[in-house]
């Protein structure tokens, strides 16, 4: 027997002790379970970070967002941020910039939308409060997520990636309305569901 600071002499490639073999076996088995879980979850789970991903010119994204706002604007928040109510099932565009999210969204419960996220300056972090769902918003990349609000309420979008000295001021708003869908009460999930997307991925 020798310590870790002494050079072992001769052949040290020896069979492991039984206890060590059992432990390595258990640990390896557990790693295989974890290894299987992630792909399995990806196919079977309801909330995945994949999506429709494209590169986009930041100015083109800004123009697309402004067009989106012009099409579906229903008013303005007290602080001047435009309020937009897109038709059910449409593509919605959210723009991150120092230090605000535009527009303020009005969505309907239990309707699937494609939520596009991008930035026109630096990285931002999309963090939906209080459901606690987080995605990166990177300039030059359009991240399209299939989302289906499963709960009505007044939500906030906190920026959770440092984006300069006004970072802590950057908060946006999403209101989910319990719309016309009469059977809305059947899906009783307490989270905004980001549906698994197998189609439409690059």
């Amino acid at each position: 027997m020798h310590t870790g600071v002494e050079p072992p002499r001769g052949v040290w490639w020896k069979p492991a002790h039984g206890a060590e073999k059992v432990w390595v076996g258990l640990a390896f088995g557990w790693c295989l379970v974890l290894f299987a879980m992630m792909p399995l979850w990806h196919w079977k789970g309801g909330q995945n970070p994949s999506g429709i991903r494209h590169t986009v010119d930041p100015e083109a994204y800004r123009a697309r967002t402004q067009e989106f706002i012009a099409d579906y604007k229903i008013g303005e928040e007290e602080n001047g941020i435009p309020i937009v109510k897109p038709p059910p099932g449409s593509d919605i565009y959210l723009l991150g910039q120092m230090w605000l999210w535009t527009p303020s969204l009005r969505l309907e419960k239990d309707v699937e939308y494609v939520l596009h996220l991008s930035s026109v300056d630096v990285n931002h972090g999309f963090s939906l409060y209080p459901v606690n769902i987080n995605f990166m918003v990177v300039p030059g990349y359009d991240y399209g997520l299939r989302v289906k609000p499963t709960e009505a309420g007044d939500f906030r979008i906190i920026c959770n990636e440092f984006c300069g000295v006004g970072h802590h001021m950057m908060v946006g708003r999403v209101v989910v309305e319990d719309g016309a869908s009469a059977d809305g009460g059947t899906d009783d999930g307490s989270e905004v569901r980001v549906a698994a997307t197998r189609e439409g991925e690059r």
Partner: protein
Amino acid sequence: MKGGFRTCPTTSLKVHRQADNLIKANAVVATVSLLVGGVAAILVLLTRWQAIHLLDAVWFYRLLTVHGMSMLIFFILFFEMAVLYFAGPVLLNSRVPAPRLAWGMFWLMVIGAVMVEWEMWAGRADVLFTSYVPLKASPWFYLGVILFAVGALFVVAIFFASLVVAKREKTYEGSMPLVTFGAATAAIIAVITLSHGAAIYIPTFLWSLDLMYVDPEVYRVVWWGLGHSAQQINVAAMVSIWYLLGAFTVGAVVINEKISRSAFVLYVLFISMASAHHLLVDPGMGPAWKIVNTSYFMYMAVLASMIHGFTVPAGIEVGQRLRGFRKGMFEWLRKAPWGDPGFSSLIFSVIIFGVVGGITGVTFGTEQINIIAHNTLRIPGHFHATVVGGTALAFMGVTYYVIPLIFRKKVAFWPLAKIQPYLFAGGMLLFSVAMTFAGTFGVPRRHWDISFSQALFDVQFSPAVNLVIAVMAIGGILAALGGGIYILITVWSVFLGKPMEGEVVYVD
């Protein structure tokens, strides 16, 4: 340059004069970096504790940048350079090859570090540790990082050269010790890491001079090849120190060289790809890339840590039993030297790294769980357990042996030294767990004001958040106190402490 060897009266190792001096120099600079990073840590902590909210926004983000760079880069890497000189030349009884180059590279690293610190404190690099493009710092900031990395890369090369020199000059018999082997894996990972660093910081430096374009997503991918792999240097170095401290404190044995060494090799093979888990909610990469890199590759590196988590305590038990503590199941544990700060640091480092850091880290590496954890306080909660409770604590523990063995000084304030690991580990445990809990409420990391008093819309966190943040602050203050005691002990011992008995004589 003066050479010569002394024989260590405790370990009988032959220690080269330049190895002694280089370890001392790197350890001193590491401690200075720890002090700078520690002061920033307290100020940042007292700002995030909303009840005090000490700094204004500009200085909060500035000192958060200082804290990250000083701790994760300068403190840890200077200390690791000392570890390489110890695990290579000292443990192998060898000389330091190319000592002039070694000193040149030490000073290059110091110049790089000073440049970076200068730019940060002057407010020309408020970009945080990750410095994500297109947030821009001054070119001097990036240049400083590049110089530092080049210096570190050369020191790693000198370490490899020392392995060759020792083998050729037959300064030891048999295979290299496990601790040296572990340090060699850390050095290999360092080459991977520093290459990523060059691949991203050189283009970013040119970008800061308006000479080229750097894509923000490409930056994130390559930068994390540096940012995460750097933590794997820490893991490999820390595990080597676990084996070292086990040997020094209780004569812990290596139960099976094959198992322990294979586990180190797993780190080299798999850990760098695991940096993909920082990009799980990024728009740049598809699910296949994310799943392969995080599930397949990361779990093989996790396996390595699980193996060490068994073999290190098992080696301690067998070592203790060989020393005569054979009664019952746990006499070896009860009669362990709990008053030796090297030993208590070792045990707490294994537990905090393995249990708190390991479990949180593996869960965040899952694509779907990452959605609810990304960029919340759960993330710093995790890495304060791994890097601070694990790596930094192991480094502190080994310092109590570096002071007498290398500096040839008695450890000052011994009663304080005995309790220092308990204070630091307890504080860090409280801090990490509370921070992780706060993150589960959706509290963002890197955020000056979670009361959102200046925000466009109001945000009301659950009142429980205030309580959890207060617990985090108390834990942080205890840990900072432990860190302060560590700095006091090391500085006092080295510069004002009593020398060990016996004259230090270097013989050619």
